[in-house]
Each structure stands twice: as structure tokens, then as C-alpha cells.
């Protein structure tokens, strides 16, 4: 299993001058291709910060971050953009679909950025939307979809370009538990059938149980790493 993410001594400080908040304190972490890993921990434990750093949206104060074999601290802004476009997928807590694009157009957005021909990308995205259970809803705008359907579009958008890693920040936080379970089932199926690597943060114990690996963060440090059953979570 090739290593997709490698973090070594990652520290992240926020603030300036005398008021500094340390969000991450020397985090070491490796994620392999094909993993379905969750990250849990109390609010303020550094989950989102860690996802942002792995996703190249934020830079660490100290430490080394390698994603898909590339050291992120050495990349320029443009190179980070291209890495996110070509090798990473993002799923956000608030779905964050583009309101003026239809489900199909949202899902094909990254493929459009990559310069893929319209006919080819449409064919591909229709198949993915079918796979995530949105057949027949391709031409609906986000406002015409339920929260669960919107998150399915977001998942389709995240996996459309076949990224090396999909990062999901509390993907089930804004949907009811039944929809959350269905979304997680979908992500897990994509992981098993298509080999998509998922790394997501969550507060939901039901979601944590579905992960094959659970990383527990506490006060900016990794407090546990292994199968969910072996971890102790404190809120």
C-alpha cells in the first residue's frame, strides 16, 4: 500500500505576537492508498487544521507534509492549486456546491478545470451521479436538492477526477442520521469498489465505527491511532 500522505513533526500556530494558539503539536501521520480513515476528537483538537494542511489549503508552522509524493511546503500557490485539482478531492460539511450550476455541472467542475472535453466529462459524470444515486436529478440546481442529495453531488464532485485522496470535513454533520449513514455507506462502497482513499473528520460515533482506521486527536496531538473499536473518544 503506497503512502499517500506523510506528516512529520507538523506544528501549526495561529495568532501573532504574544497571543499564539497552537492548533497542532508535532503531528506524525502516514496514510496509505485505499485507506478509509476517520479522525475524531473534541472541538478545537485540530481536526480541521490537519485536513486543511493535508489539502494544501493551509501551511504548517513547522514540519514536513508530503502528499502523493510531493512536499507541500516547497510548492508555490499555483502548484498547490494544480495538486488540489488533479490529486485531491474535497467534501465539505456545508456541501459548498456552486449555487448557479446544476448537479451535473457541479460534479463536472473539476474535470472542466482539468480541460477535459465536454462530451467525455459529461459521460463520466453521469455515470458517477448514477452511482451516487442521483440519476434523474442531474439538471437540478442545489436549491432544488435535499441536504443529503447535495452532499451526494459533493461526493460525486470529489471523486469525479479520480483523486489520490478525498478529504472530508465532517461530511455528515449537516444531514440527519439516516442520511448520514447512507452517505457513509456510499463513501465506503466507493472505497471498496473503486479504491478511493478517504480521510474524514467526524464527531459522530456511528460514523467512526464505520471507519477501518480511527485517528484520535486531542490538544493538537495524536492520542490514538488504530481500529475504531480500540479507541477511546472523549468529547
Amino acid at each position: 500500500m503506497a503512502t499517500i500522505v506523510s506528516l512529520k513533526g507538523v506544528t501549526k500556530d495561529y495568532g501573532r505576537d504574544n497571543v499564539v494558539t497552537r492548533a497542532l503539536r508535532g503531528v506524525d501521520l502516514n496514510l496509505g492508498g485505499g485507506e478509509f480513515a476517520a479522525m475524531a476528537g473534541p472541538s478545537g483538537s485540530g481536526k480541521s487544521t490537519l485536513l486543511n494542511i493535508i489539502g494544501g489549503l493551509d501551511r504548517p508552522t513547522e514540519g514536513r507534509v508530503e502528499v502523493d509524493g510531493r512536499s507541500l511546503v516547497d510548492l508555490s500557490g499555483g502548484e498547490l492549486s494544480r495538486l488540489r485539482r488533479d490529486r485531491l478531492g474535497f467534501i465539505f460539511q456545508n456541501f459548498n456546491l456552486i449555487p448557479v450550476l446544476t448537479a451535473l455541472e457541479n460534479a463536472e467542475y473539476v474535470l472542466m478545470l482539468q480541460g477535459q472535453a465536454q462530451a467525455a466529462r459529461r459521460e463520466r459524470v453521469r455515470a458517477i451521479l448514477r452511482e451516487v444515486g442521483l440519476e434523474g436529478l442531474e439538471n437540478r440546481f442545489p436549491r432544488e436538492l435535499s441536504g443529503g442529495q447535495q452532499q451526494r453531488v459533493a461526493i460525486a464532485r470529489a471523486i469525479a477526477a479520480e483523486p489520490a485522496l478525498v478529504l472530508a470535513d465532517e461530511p455528515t454533520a449537516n444531514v440527519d442520521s439516516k442520511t448520514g449513514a447512507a452517505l457513509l455507506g456510499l463513501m465506503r462502497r466507493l472505497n471498496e469498489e473503486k479504491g478511493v482513499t478517504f480521510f474524514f473528520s467526524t464527531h459522530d460515533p456511528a460514523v467512526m465505527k464505520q471507519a477501518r482506521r480511527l485517528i484520535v486527536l486531542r490538544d493538537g496531538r495524536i492520542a490514538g491511532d488504530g481500529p475504531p473499536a480500540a479507541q477511546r473518544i472523549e468529547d
Partner: protein
Amino acid sequence: MILRLAWRSIWRQKRRTLITVVSIGFGLALAVFFIAVAEGAYSQLVEQVVRMQAGHVTIENPAYRDAPAIDLRVDGVGRLRAEIERLDQVESTKLLILGQGVARSGAGAVGVSLMGVEPAGEAKTSPLSRNLVAGQYLAPEDDALVVIGRELAERLKLDLGRKLVLTTNDVSGQLKEELCRVKGVFATGSPEVDGYLVQAPLKFLGRLFGLPPDSATQVGLILKDPADQSRVIKAVRGLTGGRDLAVLPWQEVMPELAAYIRMDRGSNWIMQAILLFLIMFTIFNTILMSVLERSREFAVLLALGTAAGQVRRQIITETIYLGLIGCGAGLLVGGLASGAAQVWGINMSALMPEGVTISGFAVSPVFHAKLTWPILAWSGGLVFGATVLLGLIPTRRAVRVSVVDQLRG
């Protein structure tokens, strides 16, 4: 997809987009209309004045402009005008004798400008013939007959057919007098013209001033299209190359009129620019609002791997759409309004019953706009360019959003 994204983005706030488009369109339509009306007024003024005076192009003695005197004349005018009239751009030529004198009646005496004209041609083109309030205009067979302005007639208590004496110095400096009668009275609305101008047949004034036959103080050229002025001047200078003659554009013959038009045109453009500048603030505000309220959306686009340049292009494309719709509407409305004013004119006589004078010259109270492609291109281009330039400023803010902060929010 950027085009589609931009197009749909501008319509997500329909009311705001419509207000922006209407602001651009309204400002541009007003600018086009007022500039076209002003250009029409200048054009009318110039046409009226040059036809009454020495034409779009004037040929005269090179020393005349510095010290106008009756002996500074052009000889051999018959052959010269025959050559000039062969030019395609020339509608007609006219001979003038211009001098100073005193008009005297039983009621008094007034210093006047004497203008000798050829009645046959002048009757067709001169505004004086169209502004007669009493009597008739000069006819080719007339000799000791004159037309005078209403104010002069009132001051000298002259009615139609009454006698007056014109006194002047002839070319040899001798005092000369001729008796003549009033054939017509005109009223142009201009105090200078109505109070001090006496028009008489060319041969009569030639005799009064003692000019030799086949001579005049000016040869005026009326052009079919005033835009051909510099080409005609070049051609006429070629024709008169061997002779010591000045070939002048009307702007040099009537510099005060040219200066007035330049100044008025400049202030008109400045007024329109101020108006548009104010409108541009509304547009800038709209674009800025539209960008600021979508900070999170831009953060998502950047997070997904959209290059900053692509986000900028999207916003600029939105601005271009706003500019195109606004400018298109503005040019259409402004063009149609100006076109209507060009065909039917705007009658200002109710607002100015005493008549309209511009820079001392009387003009028709019915203003016809003059809509030209340069007016549409310049005003449309300036407004469109300013709109797009304004869009560049918020663009910088859009790509400087903190992706992490926006996504966290």
C-alpha cells in the same frame, strides 16, 4: 463553463443586475443624446454661418486677415471660381465684397458692415433670405437696393422702399456715397447681424468701393460635405499655386466661432464624464458587493483547484456581461433618441421665444441632433472600458480571500 458560470452569476441577484444595467444604459444614453444634440447644434451653426459668410473654405488676399481693407482683394475671380467649381466636393462658390461704412437716413447714422453678395446664389443658401420679416430678398437684376436687419431699420426709422445713403472710403481712399432703398428687412435674432449688417448686390457695392470688375474681397466655397474641407483646401492651393492667395478654413476666418465650439464641446464632454463618473460609483459598488457576498464561494472554487486567474476571469467576464448589456441598451436608447432628434428636431422656440443665438450668431430654434459612428464608438467604448476597469478592483479581493477562514465560517 466560466462563461456560463459568469452569466448565471450576474442573474442570481436580478434586481441588482437590472439596476446596474439600467444605470449604465441610462448614463450612456444620456451622454450619447446630449453629445449628438450638441454636435447637431454646432453643425447647424457652422452651416448657417459659413453659408451666410465666406463659406467652408475662403480664398482671400494673404494680408486681408491681419488688416481687413477693401483694396486687399482677389482679382480674376471669374476664372478662379470656374476652376474651383470643377472639384467634385464643391457644391457652389460665392463672391463677397466686405467693407465698412455708414448708413444714414433722416433719423440718424449708424456704422455698418457692408456685405456685397450675388443675389441669385445667396437667395438659395443665405439664412437672411429665410429670415425676412418684411419685403423681399435681393434679386439678380437689383442694383441700388439693400436688405437690412430689423434693429437697424428701427434705429434709422426705415420702412420698405425708403431711402438711405451709404457712405464709405473707396479703394483709392476717396469718400464715396450711394443712395439706395430698403428692399427687405430680416430678423435673425442676433443683435450683431440685425443691428449692423447691410447686404447689397455685389455690383452695387463694387461700384461704391470702386473695385475693378471681376474682383472681390473673398471667394467662398460651399462644400457638399464639410468633412472634405482639408482635401478641398489642398486641391485649391494646388489650383492657386502660382498666385499670391490665402486659402483658409472657416475656423481661421471665424476663429471666435471655432473657439466657442471647441470650448463648448470640451465642457459638454466633461459634463458627460462627470455624470458617468457618478454612475460608475454605483456600478463599482454593485460589483464589489457581488464579490464580497460570494467570498465563501470563491474560497470553495480556489479549494477545488481553480487557479486565481480563472476566478479573476470569471469576475471580469461578469463585468463584461454587465458592460455589454448596459452599453448595448444605452447605445440603443441613446441612438434611437438621437435618431429621432436628428429626423424631427427639438423645437426650443417655446423656451426661447426671443430667438437663439450662439456666440453672437443666430441659429434656428429647432435643433437637429447629429448622430455619428464616432459618438457611439467613443462614448460606448469609454463607458464599457470604465466598467471593465472598475471590475478589476474587486477581482483582486476575490482571489485574496482566506480559503481556510471562509470554509471555517
